[in-house]
């Protein structure tokens, strides 16, 4: 069973991106990625929680225990300033790579 089809590090980027809209719990993060990707990307919990752990150790998110909409105790993740900075840097790098790849692809097809 493949963990996910995403390139390495991309999941962290997606998580940070959806957290930019406000703090969320794990399930909501997965759902939001699923919805925003027009239901293409499905984040398995086996990938989600280790990734969250790693991001937290890196200091990009902080977590606090809160109460969910269903009244259960659950952890909410919130992006930190370092996280925002990391996200911006990574997005810029991603844009550059993406454009470069596009340029090459266009060049070959002409």
């Amino acid at each position: 069973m493949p963990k996910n089809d995403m390139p390495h590090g991309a999941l962290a980027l997606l998580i940070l991106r959806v957290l930019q809209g406000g703090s969320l719990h794990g399930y909501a993060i997965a759902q939001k990625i699923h919805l925003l990707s027009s239901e293409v990307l499905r984040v398995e919990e086996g990938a989600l929680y280790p990734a969250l752990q790693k991001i937290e150790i890196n200091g990009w998110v902080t977590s606090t225990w809160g109460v969910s909409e269903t009244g259960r105790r659950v952890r909410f993740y919130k992006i930190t300033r370092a996280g925002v900075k990391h996200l911006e840097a990574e997005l810029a790098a991603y844009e550059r790579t993406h454009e470069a790849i596009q340029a090459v692809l266009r060049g070959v097809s002409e």
Partner: protein
Amino acid sequence: MKSPMQVFRQLRYLLRLRRNEEGLAEELAFHREMAEREGNAIPLGNELRIREETRDASGAAPFERMAQDLRFAFRMLAKDPGFAVPAVLMLALGIGVNVAVFGFFSLVYLRPLPVREPDSLIRLSRQSPERYAYTLPYAEFAFLREHSRTAHGFVAMRQVRLATDDGLPALQAQYVSENFFEELGAPIARSEGAVISYSFWQRRFDGEAGVAGKPLRVNGKLVPITAVAAKGFPGLSMEPPDVWLPMDKPADDAEVQVWARVAQDGSPAAVEAEMRGLALNFRRVRPELGWEQEWIRAQAGGHAASLVRGTRSGTGPETADGSNAVLLLVASLGGLILLVACTNLGGLLLARGVSRERELRIRASVGAGSGRLAAQLFTESLALAALGALAGLGLGYGVSVGLMRYADLPAWLDPAPDWRVVLFACGAGLASALLFGLAPAMQGSKMKFHAGMARKVLIGAQVAASCVLLIVSGLLARSIQQATDVPPGFDYEQMAVVSPGLAERGFDASRAGEYLRRLEERARAVAGVESTALTDTSPMGRSSTVMQVDLGSGKPLEVLLNHVRGDYVKTMGLRMPRGREPRRAREAAISELAARRLYGDGDPIGKPLAIGGGYTVTGVTGQARLVRVEDGELAQAYLFAEEADMAKMMLIVRASTALETVLPELPPAARAVEGSVIPEVQAMRTAYEKKLEGPRRGAVAVSALGLAALVLACGGIVGLVAFAVARRTREIGVRMALGARPVHVLGNVLGEFARPVLAGLVAGVAAAATLSQLLQRQLYGISHLDGMAYGGAIGVFVATAGIAALVPAWRALRVDPAQALRGD
């Protein structure tokens, strides 16, 4: 690279591992519940696996493994107390000695004084090519305070003895500038009255609460007590005085000790640069007080080392402190002890490694990599070192407390280990773990490693280190014995010194001369007084003036300068092989060493003297050790004292009857001259004994270190030989069964050790010869290569080590051959 914050978060994650995992389980349960509720696919992931992956994702695995190793290491140690207890004790001894030495060093040189902002304090002293002094004339202090831009917060202090009520001992007093308490952060308002120290308050007033406002008699005047200083407040002297008094503008040439503060963005170097110009200007304004080519030195003033310098002064450049050499020596010896302890432990661990071979092999065969096994073995060494460092810290503290009592150090110096000492203990522990832990780790991991060779190196190192320690303690013991046995060259038994401290009391030269003439008259009238004289250098006293004379070839001659008057030679009981003592202005006598170095074989009498300017030699005295008991290389010159020298003079008295009957008569005689001057009266014998105390303590301390090393080394040798013999039990059994003579077998077994022991001895002697050069000035009457000390030390070592080695070897010989052959 991990940032420190990341590591911190990883450790925090580990520390809360259980809570974190419970949290994760809760989160996963919630996730599934939500998926179910919203009709999404229910994830089928394995919860255990997610938990593992999450833990791995934290990146904390190496720490976790380390913690695991450490837990295991402590378990292994607890299982084998017969090994762990002696090992930890040995390490504790090695580390403890070094902690004590470092603690003392740190206390004096590193720990900030318990005053406000000690880091910005500097101590000012004067220097010139001709001389140096740690006191400044008051006028210069005032001048610098007024004109300096790089330094502020100038504090002046002058120490004096002052008379108080009749029958009570004189007061140790300090006149201090008005900002003294404020600058040092003592919560005492500026006041006109007297501030008494905590210990004086306890001593004189039994700690009575309502002491403020009470009058204290100081030099005949009543001064109200305004405050008591806090218990731990040292002021700016090692020994806090009884009382601090406001310094109302003293004479311009009154010598004061000066401290100041550097500006926040400044540095002592900047202060020195500025004060070069200021000192020049001062000399222009006050040519009689400034020195030629004077400059002001600004040294860090915020620790005890700067207080120790007191009012030191001398001619020529300031010579390096002799105590530095001693400290360096003691530190090296401490390092050697630790080395011996580590080699011992290394030996023990090697032996243990052999007996654990089976365990290690099993662990390797179930998949432990060799790196992992080495890490595990090294972690065990680390655990051992951690325990040793902890115990060493305790032991070192105990030794420090004892040492403080023994050496009579002031109570405000707190020997409790601070972060520096704790850090040092950790460092020492880590260093020893590297030393003793590497060999077994390599052995365990089956890297290429020759256990037999390692054992030989261990033995050699041990022999060398113990040899050095024994030789150095032998040298010190011999020197102290010589210093005590050889008379100091003057007769100290029937003598007393009466020091009135006239300069500190503000007497000018003519008033001092008048006082001394009358004091001498009164003293001569005391029954039992045979003769008296005046001198500016108290024999066995604290301060002296030493001049270096460059003779062009060889070592410069060091001459102790004394200004004297009266029957000096007779009163001191000096020998006078030639000529007579100086009787009028510009006459001088010199000691034999000075005569030999300055005039060779020629007769110095009547010749001009190269020291002091314009003196003629009238006589040659025997060599005497007037100030430093252990220094035989110091020559003396006795110059006839000028009227201008009078304020610095003191009276020496020789008694023809028992000194005990004369001593109590001297203070009343002095009081009859002038009631306000309470001189210090001391029997020469007491001062002499006190002077011997220092070297004696040094010898005792180093001997204790030597003994500790010897015991450690013997323990180590017994262990190593026993181990070597045990490995060869079967071979020995066979040989004995075949009829070999015990002596031969013994020779064969011990022969293995002959070469490393010999090499160790040679290395030890060489190291001792090098190291003891540091001691040269502290050794009296013997060379630092003294044959007796070296021979004795080697003899003691070989004898004890030989016996130590024979015990296990002999036991092996008495093994029943049949049993040895059955073996295992």
